[in-house]
């Protein structure tokens, strides 16, 4: 007896996808047509993607890396020729019928989202700040802190202790102020060149594996004709920050993961 298969959904688009280059990535990659929409799917083994199997596999980082990359590659391939609504990793249906029912229920909304996404791309901008170097530059450039340092040297130990504490607080405040100022300024300048923008959770160092701290994790929905201006602005900001201990990482174009929220959800959250 052959193993039961589930339907894995990658993305939905309104143009017939060309899947020739992605056929090698997964078995049975195919699209599913319903009411003017194409759902790009593959058949996956229940032992790997069923509730039990997925639970086990999601704890295996190598499995997650490989399969998340495949998910992304397939959507990128479809995105090369069409606007796409990307689904989250691991969206599975028991049967073609349950997928069809979902498409039936959301077809109008998917079409609305696809119209919104037309001729636009998602770009990601992450900004990192080197807190240690920022502290150094603050110490050397802020007159108030320099003044306190002078006072500490000429003060008796008791007073010096409290001055030292005050200095640490001022330093932390000033570093935070700089981080907020730069990240907000960058976000707003880029937001002005975008249709939509959003700010996401900051990722900790354990995840980024970088020495410096993530201070902004943002995404922008940019018109294809405005991408040049957007990149120019990123370059301008990069130059502006070069000696200020900030690093900007801009990536794209991405499938619009951050900009295809469903209306029902927005109403629910309103």
């Amino acid at each position, binding site marked *: 007896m052959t193993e039961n298969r*589930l339907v894995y959904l990658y993305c939905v688009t309104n143009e017939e996808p060309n899947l020739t280059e992605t056929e090698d990535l997964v078995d049975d990659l195919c699209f599913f047509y319903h009411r003017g929409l194409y759902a790009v799917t593959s058949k996956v083994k229940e032992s790997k*993607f*069923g*509730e039990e199997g*997925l*639970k086990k596999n*999601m*704890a295996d*980082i190598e499995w*997650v*890396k490989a399969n*998340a*990359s495949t*998910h*992304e590659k397939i959507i990128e391939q479809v995105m090369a020729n069409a606007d796409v*609504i*990307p689904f*989250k*990793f*691991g*969206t*599975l*249906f*028991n049967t073609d019928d*349950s997928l069809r*029912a*979902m498409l039936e*229920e*959301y077809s109008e909304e998917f079409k609305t989202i696809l119209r919104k996404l037309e001729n636009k791309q998602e770009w*990601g901008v992450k900004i990192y700040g080197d807190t240690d170097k920022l502290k150094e530059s603050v110490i050397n450039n802020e007159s108030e802190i320099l003044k306190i340092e002078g006072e500490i040297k000429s003060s008796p130990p008791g007073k010096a202790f409290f001055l030292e504490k005050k200095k640490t607080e001022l330093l932390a405040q000033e570093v935070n102020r700089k981080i907020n100022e730069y990240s907000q300024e960058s976000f707003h300048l880029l937001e002005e060149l975008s249709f939509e923008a*959003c*700010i*996401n*959770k*900051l*990722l*900790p160092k*354990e*995840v980024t594996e970088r020495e410096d701290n993530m201070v*902004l*994790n943002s995404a922008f929905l940019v018109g*294809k*004709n405005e*991408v*040049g201006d957007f990149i120019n602005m990123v370059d301008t900001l990069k130059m502006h920050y070069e000696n200020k201990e900030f690093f900007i990482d801009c*990536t*794209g*174009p*991405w*499938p619009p*993961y*951050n*900009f*295809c*929220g*469903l209306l*029902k*959800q927005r109403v*629910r*959250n309103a």
Partner: protein
Amino acid sequence: MHNVVTKSRDVTLLEVLDRVLDKGVVISGDAVISVADVDLIYLGLKVLLSSVETMEQSRGAPITGPMQEPT
């Protein structure tokens, strides 16, 4: 297509994981399995914590999708 910058091949896996595990449309409804609330949290040995659950089998069950999060 305006290809001023093509995506560099060395886009880190982190960038991919940050999106595909956390963003994208999430549908819940009739007989749908979905990976829920994956946090990109690594423990000492780089174990990715995650949870997987079967969505409630009710029509019009809560739908969550990308949304703005507090920093």
